[in-house]
């Protein structure tokens, strides 16, 4: 038994970030998971979605992800949800989670990231939010007493400033690094390590620049101000 055994890690999105995040958590000793994604494996995913192979094309990502990690570790307890969470469904989704659940937002939907942030802040849950594009990535752990994602970014960007990886590209290695960074942050939250939350890690793997951008709780933050 490790301190992580009693924690359920909820990974929303089993794509470029979710795949390495799941691997990182299993490697760290986590054993209980909920995997959420309605998507099927596509050949275009294989470069960065490292849990899937050619034979998995057309199959549900959550099922293939579960099969992959179950072949790597004993006694994994994995629940899969092959459906897409809409922005309007986030709050009700969180009410169904066990108390000791830590979420990882590995989606590619800016509006959903903000919705997950807001719902976690309202319900006192911890979440790790990540994003990648081309050579860059960001990751932020949000805990009940820390600044949240909306303290830094007040609103989602418009579509023209939030291009999808499929349109402008992302280097698979960048997604891999960020996924493991997210896993590390989630582990640190589970272990109650201090100073884990409330800072935005911004990485540029083309230049090697890594920055920690310090966030503070904003008084008029729409998420924090309404938190219980």
């Amino acid at each position, binding site marked *: 038994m490790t301190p992580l055994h009693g924690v359920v890690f909820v990974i929303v999105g089993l794509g470029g970030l*979710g795949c390495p995040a799941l691997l990182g958590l299993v490697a760290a000793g986590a054993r209980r998971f909920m995997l959420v994604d309605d998507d099927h494996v596509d050949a275009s995913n294989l470069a960065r979605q490292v849990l899937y192979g050619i034979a998995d094309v057309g199959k549900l990502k959550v099922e293939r992800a579960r099969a992959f990690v179950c072949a790597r570790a004993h006694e994994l307890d994995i629940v899969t949800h092959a459906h897409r969470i809409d922005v309007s469904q986030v709050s009700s989704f969180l009410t169904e989670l066990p108390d000791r659940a830590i979420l990882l937002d590995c989606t*590619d939907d800016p509006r959903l990231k903000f919705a997950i942030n807001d719902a976690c802040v309202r319900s006192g849950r911890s979440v790790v939010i990540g994003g990648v594009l*081309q050579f860059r*990535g960001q990751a932020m752990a949000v805990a009940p007493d820390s600044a949240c994602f909306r303290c830094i970014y007040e609103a989602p*960007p418009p579509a023209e400033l*939030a291009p*999808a990886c499929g349109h402008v590209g992302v280097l698979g290695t960048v997604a891999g690094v960020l996924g493991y960074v997210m896993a590390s942050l989630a582990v640190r939250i589970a272990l109650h390590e201090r100073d884990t939350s409330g800072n935005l890690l911004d990485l540029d793997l083309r230049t090697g620049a890594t920055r920690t951008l*310090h966030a503070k709780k*904003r008084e008029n933050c729409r998420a924090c101000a309404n938190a219980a």
Partner: protein
Amino acid sequence: MATVRIPTPLRKYTQGREDVVVSGQTVAELLENLESSYPGIRERICDESGAVRRFVNVFVADEDIRFLDNLNTPVGEADEVSIVPAIAGG
């Protein structure tokens, strides 16, 4: 002269350059001079009222300007100013 780090979506305004050197004693001045050198870029950072857009953040030496003095935040000679939009790909 401060170094301004340009995020990928805005590099089309800076001819692909990811770092540019710009003068300005405050963030507001710096953005104005940035616009003079690279027309069109400020509109992507600031709205019609001149405020930083809600989905972008500006950091001076890794500190969020909203917790300093916003656009009046002083910029030192050797400071690094980062324009950091949210990245949402997954």
